[in-house]
C-alpha cells in the first residue's frame, strides 16, 4: 500500500530537504529567491509552473501601483491588541521596519497587511482545525500604510507554532504573514516573517524552499531592545526589500 503524504515521517521529508540543500551547495550557484518547485512542500507538487518564467520589461499599468490612502485604513488597524474589548493572551510585541525598493529607496505611503495565528498557534480562519484555544480578544489581522521613510509598525501578540498536514508531526515555525505593495505592480509580494532561533526552521519545507542560507535569513526578524517598550512589549525589527523599479527618475517625481 502506498503511503500518503500525511503518513510520511519528518525523517523522510528532512532527508529530501537535506539532499536538495546538498545539491544546491554543490552547484556553486546563488539563488536569492524561493523555489516554486520544492517537492518536500507537498501542496506545491501540482501548483508550480514547469516552464521558466518569461522575462518581460514592464510596460503601461505595470509601472504603477494601486494607491491606498486614509480612507482605506483606520490607524487602529496597526494595533492587533486593541481590536476587542479585552487584552489578548500572549507575549505583547511590536514589529517595525522599513519597506525599501531594490535601489534602497523607501516605499512611501504604501499598504502593508499582516495576518497570523494567536499565541496558541490557532487562526481565526474557519478551516483551521488545530485544537488550540481561540482567543476571543485576538483576530490576528493588521494593516497600515508606510510613512514617508518607508517605515511600518504593528503592535501584536507573538504567534505560536502550529501543526499542519504536510507530513506526520509537521509543525510550522512561528511566523507572521506579510503582504506588500511597491511603487510599481511588478514589486507585489507576499511573504512570512520568522523569529530568531526557531528550532523548527530546519524541519520546515516552506522555510527551506529558500535553499540559500543567507537568503533564508532575510525572513528572520531581529530582536531589538530599542523597539522593546518598558513594562509593555518586546520589540522586533524586520526590513523588507522589494525588487527594483523600472521607472525613470522623472516619472518618480511626477508620482
Amino acid at each position: 500500500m502506498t503511503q500518503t503524504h500525511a503518513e510520511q515521517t519528518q525523517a523522510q521529508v528532512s532527508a529530501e530537504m537535506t539532499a536538495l540543500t546538498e545539491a544546491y551547495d554543490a552547484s556553486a550557484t546563488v539563488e536569492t529567491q524561493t523555489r516554486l518547485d520544492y517537492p518536500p512542500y507537498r501542496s506545491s507538487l501540482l501548483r508550480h509552473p514547469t516552464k521558466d518564467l518569461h522575462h518581460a520589461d514592464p510596460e503601461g499599468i505595470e509601472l504603477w501601483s494601486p494607491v491606498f490612502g486614509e480612507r482605506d485604513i483606520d490607524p487602529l488597524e496597526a494595533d492587533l491588541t486593541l481590536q476587542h474589548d479585552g487584552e489578548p493572551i500572549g507575549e505583547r510585541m511590536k514589529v517595525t521596519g522599513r519597506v525599501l525598493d531594490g535601489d534602497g529607496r523607501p516605499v512611501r505611503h504604501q499598504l502593508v497587511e499582516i495576518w497570523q495565528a494567536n499565541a496558541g498557534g490557532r487562526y481565526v480562519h474557519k478551516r483551521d482545525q488545530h485544537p488550540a484555544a481561540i482567543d476571543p480578544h485576538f483576530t490576528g489581522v493588521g494593516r497600515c500604510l508606510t510613512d514617508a521613510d518607508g517605515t511600518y509598525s504593528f503592535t501584536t501578540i507573538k504567534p505560536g507554532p502550529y501543526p499542519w498536514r504536510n507530513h506526520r508531526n509537521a509543525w510550522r515555525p512561528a511566523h507572521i504573514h506579510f503582504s506588500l505593495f511597491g511603487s510599481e505592480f511588478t514589486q507585489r509580494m507576499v511573504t512570512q516573517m520568522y523569529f530568531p532561533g526557531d528550532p523548527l526552521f530546519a524541519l520546515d519545507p516552506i522555510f527551506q524552499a529558500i535553499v540559500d542560507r543567507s537568503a533564508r535569513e532575510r525572513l528572520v526578524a531581529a530582536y531589538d531592545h530599542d523597539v522593546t517598550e518598558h513594562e509593555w512589549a518586546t520589540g522586533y525589527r524586520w526590513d523588507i526589500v522589494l525588487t527594483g523599479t523600472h521607472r525613470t527618475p522623472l516619472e518618480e517625481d511626477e508620482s
Partner: protein
Amino acid sequence: MTLVPTPGQTVGPFFAFALVHDGGAELVPHGHPGAIRFTGRVLDGAGDPVPDALVEIWQAAPDGSVVRAPGSLHRDGFTFTGWGRAPTDRSGRYTFTTLTPGATTPGAAPYVAVTVFARGLLDRLLTRAYVPGDDAALGADPLLASVEEARRATLVATADEHGFVFDIRLQGDGETVFLDHRRD
C-alpha cells in the same frame, strides 16, 4: 545601490480572513454603466480547480488612464480605483466586476495585470490578461511577440456575453505564461 530582494513565501491556507474584504472584487458596482465580468478558473497540473487561490487585478481605466485614486479597500461606489482582489471558490473560479481597460499608450494592446497567490504556490505569479478583439494591436504587442506562438493564447482572455474569461493554469497542458520582470 542594489539590494537583494526579500524572498516571497506562500500565502498559505488561511488568508481569507485577512485579505478578502467585502467589495474587493467589485471594482465597479453591478449595473454600473459599462460594467463587465472578468472571470476565470485557477487550475492545477492535474486540471483540477484550485479552491484556495487569491487573484488580484490591476488595470487602466477605459480611457487608458492610470487611476491614482485610493479607496480599493473601502470603495465609495463611485470611484474606479483599478485594483481588485478575489478569492477562488470551490470550483476554482474567481470573478471581478470591472470596466474594460484601455490602452495606456495609443494603439497598444490593452491588458489587465494579474497576480496569483495560492496555498501550495511558494511565491506569487504575475501574468497579463490581454483584452481580446483588436487583432492588429495584439499582433503588434512586443510581449506577445516574444512568447512562442503555441503559448501566446494563454495570455489573451476570451470574450463571453458578460465580459472576459481568463483561466489560469499553474502547470501542465496549456500552462499559463508567467512573467519575470526583474531587471537584468
